[in-house]
């Protein structure tokens, strides 16, 4: 009787959350699955045709490939930058609180503003970056034409670096100072202490950063849409941008739904793989 009451109480408390997830997550996903099984008009049932079509669509395959490159670049560079900043700002420096706050501002800024800001900064003719380069005698660059994907990676790292830094700072502050003291007594230098103590003990934070980063980069849409419109050509047409074009430009919501579900599967597989790797590392 008591167990039943406890179960009922638990369900009562859980109901709002369950309803929230069912109504706003699982039902739409189910609806996507259903839409993905119909043609572009939503009238004829096509089964798995939209899903199999994706594997032979060169535009989709290209967008998936560059999304992986974008995700890898952003994760590697972003993690290194965030960790580096965290290590520096974990020292007792004057004004470190100010630096921490300033570095977090890009993360708190709307992606639309970031996109427009960088689009103007990088403009080869009237952008401030080329003017600065010219002022110091260096030739101006056409960043968004010659290295568009790398530029988008750079903007992403710039905007998310502060957040990664905060996560690593939290991880760093959880490492007992005792370990460093013992290592110093044993004669370990700064690099040795970093690789033997800091990095291994930051593994859970690194795992968290990489999973969150992977999910957000695989779903990236707004930045290339605002900065380059997916161009030049299709050089920055990431998977989510391609999906958007299929839905709203080609008006093929059946195929777009199938593409979105395939992305969900990829994100799930990669996230589970990362968790598995993390578990093995812990063991």
């Amino acid at each position, binding site marked *: 009787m008591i167990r039943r009451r406890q179960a009922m109480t638990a369900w009562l408390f859980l109901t709002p959350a369950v309803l929230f997830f069912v109504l706003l997550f699982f039902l739409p996903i189910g609806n996507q699955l259903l839409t993905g099984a119909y043609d572009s008009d939503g009238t004829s049932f096509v089964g798995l045709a939209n899903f199999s079509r994706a594997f032979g669509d060169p535009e989709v395959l290209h967008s998936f490939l560059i999304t992986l490159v974008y995700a890898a670049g952003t994760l590697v560079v972003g993690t290194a930058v965030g960790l580096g900043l965290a290590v520096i700002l974990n020292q007792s420096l004057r004004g470190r609180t100010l630096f921490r706050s300033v570095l977090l501002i890009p993360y708190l800024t709307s992606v639309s503003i970031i996109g427009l800001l960088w*689009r103007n900064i990088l403009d*080869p003719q*009237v952008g401030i970056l080329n003017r600065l380069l010219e002022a110091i005698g260096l030739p101006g660059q056409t960043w968004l034409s010659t290295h*568009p994907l790398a530029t988008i990676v750079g903007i992403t790292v710039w905007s998310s670096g502060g957040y990664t830094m905060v996560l690593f700072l939290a991880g760093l502050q959880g490492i007992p100072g005792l370990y460093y003291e013992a290592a110093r007594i044993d004669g370990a230098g700064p690099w040795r202490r970093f690789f033997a103590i800091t990095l291994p003990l930051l593994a859970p934070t690194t795992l968290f950063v990489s999973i969150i980063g992977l999910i957000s980069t695989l779903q990236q849409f707004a930045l290339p849409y605002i900065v380059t*419109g997916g161009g030049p*050509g299709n050089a920055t047409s990431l998977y989510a941008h391609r999906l958007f*074009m299929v839905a*709203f430009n080609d008006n093929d919501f059946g195929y777009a739904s199938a593409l979105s579900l395939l992305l969900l599967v990829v994100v799930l597989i990669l996230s589970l793989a990362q968790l598995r790797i993390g578990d093995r590392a812990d063991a």
Partner: protein
Amino acid sequence: MPPVSHAVNRRSFLQLGLGVTVLGAVGCSPAKPASKKEDSRTFTIYWNAGHGYKAYQQVIDQFGKDHDLQINWQKFQWPDLTTKLTADFRSGNVPDLVEEVSAGTGTQYGLAGNVLALDDFAAADKAFGFPGDYLDQAVVARQYEGKTYSVPLHLTANGLLFYNKAMIGTAPTTWDEFLDAAKSATKDKVSGCSLNSDPSYAAPYYDQQKVDFSDVAAKQFMQPADDALKAMQFLQDLIYTHKVSPAPVATTDYSGPQKLFSAKRAAMFVSGPWDIGPIRQGSPDIELGLAEPLTGTVQSAAMAGSGLMIPSKAKDPKLSWELITRLGAVKTELAATKEAGMSMPRKSWAADPSVAADPNLAVIAKSLSVVAKQDIALSASGKAAQIQDLWKKAYQQMIIQHAPVGPTLDDFRKQAGAAL
């Protein structure tokens, strides 16, 4: 603690929580919920952000007062307007009046059942003068199988040559003269001309080589191939061989050349009347020259200009039509021309003394007489947007990424043919 007492406490707690939740939900609800009547009195308009002229604002405000309507005038960039409208058509929650990006878009939506054919409204409203008082090319491009899916709002030509009179002495008239003038004007930080990242701005050049963008019946694109190659190679050479134009930057913004021109960093660019206003307002010190479209094999320009369409599920299509008649009245057209230099589709507008006396409008009128014919079947195919996206990719590869013109055009033809 005895179980009973525990259960009673929990129950009390839950009851209290439930009560607070209900009270909170009630308390957070609007003090005076919007009634259905109020909703039905809201009139929603989707409009291009660059066309929010005061002349239209006044007409729309007056329309709202006359009918006691709450006007919800939403302004977007064209790609965002298209996205919003597509989502609205899917959901069935549509606006009452929409500005059409260009001729043919309404046809595409109309054939899918999303916007209304307007012929019956026009037939019942002789005083409005549609289509009799409208220039033929603006109307024909909006018709398919005897039905008209939008009314032209503006009629413009993409292909006008904008030049800075202080940098270019005499306006060039041919491609050779254009190249010579661009070479002469190129110095230091000034480019002789400036190309656009938007592929629609290539149309005047390939039209001037008598190239047809599409022939849906034959599933052909950019033909004759040799002339298409000549046109696109000329554009690419302006940047990479003659170095008289900077490579454009891939963005969704089509105002790059105008901004360079306004900043006196480019001496010439090819565009339409929509750039006259920003230059006059932003750089009044520039002595702006406006010349007729260039002559390649022929003199030609690309037709442009937005229209007005009524979604099939608009709340009151008759009311939407009334606003079309007010916005399309010759008085409103003249006011918008005076304000922004925009050219209009009515014959009576062209005949007005204030238009005939304006030298810039005379150039635009001349350009309108040489606009290339549009392939209406492309819009009717329902694949126009998809093919335009493929063209954008090919154009940017050639112009921004310096891809070889011939193979890139061949790839485009294959992909566009397959998309059809």
